[in-house]
C-alpha cells in the first residue's frame, strides 16, 4: 500500500503530549490524521535493560563528547536524547543554551517529572497585573474546561488548596496530613503570607503519563490515525494556487529517501523550537516578524538543602516525608522591588540519604556525617518565571545543516538581572524559612542553570489577537494561513513558574476541537 497519493485531512508533525492530544481529539471527531515523528519507536523490552553502573564502561558517567549540553544525561540514558552531532544547533559564544530533545515516538512525554499545574490569570493577564509583556488572548476561564478534562485523562493527584495564583482542578484528592517536618515548614511560612500546598502530579496509568499510553492508543482505536516513524520533516509545502500549506516533504531517517505527503490542514506539534525551526525553514507564518521571538523558559538550579536536627541519627521515621509546592507569592502577597513576577518552591522532606556535597568533609569524617544526617534532609528548589523578551530569539543558521541537510537553529537568549535577582531572593527566603522552622541549612546555590535546562522552552510562535504582534490567534491558528496550527509550547504568549505540560495539553485539546468543528462545518 502506498500512502503518498492520498490527501489526508490533517497532517500532525510530532507525537509528544501536544501531538498526541491533537491526534486523539481530531480522530475521535472523525478526522483522518497522518502523524509523522522524526525518530523511532522506543520499546523498553528491546531497547533497554536493567544494569549496574559497574557493568558500564564509564561507570555511569555521561560518555565524554556525547550530549555534552544535556545536564540530565548520564551513561544510562545517553542514547534517548537527540545527539547534537546528528541535529546540531548554534549559540552565541557567551550565551549558552541547553536544548534538550527526544525524538523517540512520544517525544519528551516519555520522560517528564509529572508536575501538573494550571496557569492562572496572573499569567494569562500578566500585562494587566504589572504592565510588562502581553496579555494572552484567552483567560483561565476559557481554558478551565479543557484543563479539567486533561487532568482526568492524566489522573492528576493534588489537594483543593490552591490560592488564586494556582487554580484547583479535577484532582484525585490527596488528603494525607502533613508530616511533622512539613508542618513545621508550613508554620514558618504562614505568618509570612507564603502559601504551602500539596504537590500536584500526574499519576498516569501503570506508572507512565505519556502520549504513548494515554493519548495515542485512543487515536489508534478510532482507525483514523496513520503514523510514520523516522520521518524527518524538511519543510512544509505550499499549494501554488492558494498559497496555503498542503503537506510536507520529509526524509526517511534510515534510508535517506526523500518523500512527501499531502493534507488539507497542517498541525505542528514538534516541540517548541522544532516547530518554529520548521516554519522558519519553510518561510511561513511570519508576516508579523515575531516568529522565533520571545523565547522563554524557567530558571532552575537555585535552592537550599537543609537538615531537620530532630530527625538525625535515625530518629526521623515519624517526622520526615512528604512534599509540597510553594506557589508563586512574590508580587502577589509579598512584593519585591528587585524583580517582576516570581518563583515557586518544590519542597521535599527526605527519608533517604543526603549527598556528600552537603558536607565539607572527606574520608571517615564524611562517612560519619552521612550516617548521622541520614533521613533528615529537607530540600527546596525553585522554578522561576523568565520574562519574555523580543531579543531572546531563534533564527536559522544559514551556515550549518544537520545530518539531513536541513538548516539548523541558532539560539540567542540569556537571562537578565530580573532572573538573577529572583534566584537570589529565593535562596534568601528559602534559607529564612528553613531556619525559622528550626532546620540547619547545609548548602545553597543562588545561580540559575543555563537557559534551556528546565526543558520547558516556550514561546517563539506566540498567540495574540493582533496579527502584527503575534503569530497565532487564540485558537493556535496561524494568522497568515488558516489551515496551519501550532499546538505545542511555541504558542505560549508568556511563561510562568508552572510546568507547562497541563497548559500545552489543554491548548492542544481546545485548538484541535475547534479545528475539527471547523472542518466538519466545511470551513476548512
Amino acid at each position, binding site marked *: 500500500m502506498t500512502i503518498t497519493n492520498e490527501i489526508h485531512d490533517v497532517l500532525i508533525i510530532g507525537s509528544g503530549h501536544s501531538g498526541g492530544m491533537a491526534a486523539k481529539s481530531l480522530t475521535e471527531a472523525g478526522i483522518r490524521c497522518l502523524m509523522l515523528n522524526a*525518530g*523511532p*519507536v*522506543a*520499546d523498553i*523490552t*528491546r*531497547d*533497554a*535493560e*536493567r544494569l*549496574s*553502573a*559497574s557493568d*558500564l*564502561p564509564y*561507570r555511569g*558517567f*555521561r560518555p565524554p*563528547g556525547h550530549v555534552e*549540553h544535556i*545536564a540530565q*544525561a*548520564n*551513561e*544510562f*540514558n545517553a*542514547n*534517548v536524547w537527540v545527539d547534537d552531532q546528528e541535529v546540531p544547533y548554534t549559540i552565541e559564544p557567551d550565551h*549558552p543554551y541547553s536544548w534538550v530533545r527526544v525524538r*523517540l515516538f512520544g517525544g519528551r512525554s*516519555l*520522560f*517528564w*517529572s509529572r508536575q501538573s499545574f494550571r496557569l492562572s490569570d496572573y499569567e494569562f493577564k500578566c500585562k494587566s497585573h504589572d504592565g510588562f509583556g502581553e496579555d494572552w488572548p484567552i483567560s483561565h476561564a476559557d481554558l478551565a474546561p479543557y484543563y479539567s478534562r486533561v487532568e482526568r485523562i492524566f489522573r492528576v493527584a493534588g489537594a483543593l488548596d490552591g490560592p488564586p495564583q494556582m487554580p484547583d482542578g479535577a484532582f484525585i484528592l490527596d488528603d494525607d496530613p502533613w508530616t511533622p517536618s512539613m508542618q513545621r515548614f508550613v508554620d514558618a511560612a504562614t505568618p509570612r503570607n507564603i502559601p504551602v500546598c500539596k504537590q500536584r502530579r500526574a499519576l*498516569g496509568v501503570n*506508572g507512565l*503519563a*505519556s502520549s*504513548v499510553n494515554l493519548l495515542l492508543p485512543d487515536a489508534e482505536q478510532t482507525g483514523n490515525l496513520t503514523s510514520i*516513524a523516522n520521518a524527518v520533516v524538511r519543510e512544509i509545502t505550499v499549494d501554488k494556487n492558494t498559497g496555503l500549506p498542503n503537506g510536507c516533504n520529509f526524509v526517511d531517517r*534510515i534510508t535517506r529517501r526523500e518523500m512527501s505527503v499531502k493534507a488539507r490542514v497542517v498541525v505542528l506539534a514538534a516541540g517548541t523550537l522544532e516547530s518554529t525551526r520548521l516554519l522558519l525553514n519553510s518561510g511561513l507564518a511570519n508576516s508579523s516578524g515575531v516568529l522565533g521571538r520571545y523565547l522563554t523558559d524557567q530558571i532552575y*538550579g537555585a*535552592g*537550599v*538543602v537543609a537538615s531537620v536536627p530532630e530527625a538525625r541519627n535515625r530518629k526521623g521515621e515519624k517526622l520526615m516525608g512528604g512534599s509540597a509546592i510553594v506557589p508563586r507569592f512574590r508580587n502577589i502577597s509579598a512584593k519585591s522591588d528587585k524583580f517582576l513576577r516570581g518563583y515557586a518552591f518544590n519542597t521535599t522532606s527526605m527519608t533517604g540519604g543526603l549527598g556528600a*556535597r*552537603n558536607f*565539607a*568533609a*572527606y*574520608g571517615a569524617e564524611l*562517612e560519619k556525617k*552521612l*550516617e548521622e544526617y541520614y533521613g533528615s534532609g529537607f530540600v527546596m528548589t525553585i522554578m522561576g518565571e523568565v520574562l519574555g523578551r523580543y531579543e531572546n530569539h531563534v533564527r536559522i543558521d544559514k551556515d550549518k545543516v544537520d545530518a539531513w541537510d536541513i538548516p539548523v537553529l541558532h539560539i540567542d537568549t540569556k537571562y537578565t538581572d530580573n532572573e538573577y535577582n529572583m534566584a537570589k531572593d529565593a535562596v534568601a527566603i528559602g534559607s529564612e524559612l528553613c531556619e525559622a522552622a528550626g532546620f540547619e541549612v547545609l*548548602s*545553597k*546555590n543562588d*545561580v540559575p*542553570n543555563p537557559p534551556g535546562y528546565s526543558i520547558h522552552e516556550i514561546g517563539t510562535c506566540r498567540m495574540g489577537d493582533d496579527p502584527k504582534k503575534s503569530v497565532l490567534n487564540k485558537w493556535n491558528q496561524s494568522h497568515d494561513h488558516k489551515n496551519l496550527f501550532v499546538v505545542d509550547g511555541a504558542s505560549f504568549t508568556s511563561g510562568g513558574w508552572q510546568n507547562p505540560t497541563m497548559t500545552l495539553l489543554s491548548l492542544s485539546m481546545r485548538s484541535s476541537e475547534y479545528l475539527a468543528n471547523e472542518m466538519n462545518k466545511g470551513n476548512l
Partner: protein
Amino acid sequence: MKRRDFVRTLVSFLVAGKAAFSQQRVSDPTLPPPAPVPWFTGLNSRTPIPATELADHVATAELTFFTPMQMGTLTRLSDVLMPPLNGKPGAVKAQTPMFLDFLVGSAPEPRQKIYSGGLDWLEQSAQAKYKTGFAQLDDNEAGELIKPWLRTWMNDHAPIEPHADFINIAHDDIRSATVNSKTWGEVPSVGAEPSTEVDIYWLPIEPDIYGMNPAYAHTPPHVLANPKGGQKMPVYSR
C-alpha cells in the same frame, strides 16, 4: 487485531512466501547443492547467551592523559579522600585513578584543565610546604593542603574559585567512580554507605525497520518513564 499485529502477520506471510520461493530456486539443477543446514535458522530465544566481562574488570591500560607525576598525585589524593573504611574498598583498590585517566582524558578541555592544573598545584604546594611530592605526604600533611578548599555545594554548581573547583569536583568524581566500581559493589553497603547505582540502561535505539523481529512479535510495546529528577550522576556546566 491491532495494526502492528496485522502488519507483522502480513509480512510473516510475505516472508514465508519468499522462503518457499527461495527453496524452489535452490532446487534449480543449475545452482550448487544447498548446504546441509540453512545458515540463519538455528538461533532462537532459548539459545544460551555467552557471559562476558567488562574489559575494565580484567585488563590493564597505559596512562593516556595524566603524566606519571600527576597520576602519583591523583592516586594519593584518591586514597586520602576515599580510603578503605569499614570493610568497603577505597578508591585505589577500585582502580579509580586509572579510570579517571580514561574519563578525563576524553572529556572536554575545561574539565581536563581543572584536573591537570589542580594536580600540578597540589604537587607544587606539597613541594613548597613539605619539600617533598604530594604522593609522599601522610594523611595529616595532605589534609593540611586539602581542607581549606572543601566547600558545600548543590545541583550542578560546583565551586568556581580556583583550587576549590578542583578539590570539590575531583572529590565528587572520585566518590562516584569508586561507588560505581565492581570492587565496591562486591561488598554489601551498610547504613548510609552508598550503593552502586542500578538503573535502566538504554541501548542505542535504532528502529527495527522491518518491524518483524520474531523475538518481539508478541511483546506489547511498553516504555518506562525515567523522570529527569532521578538522575544522580554529577554533571558540570560547560
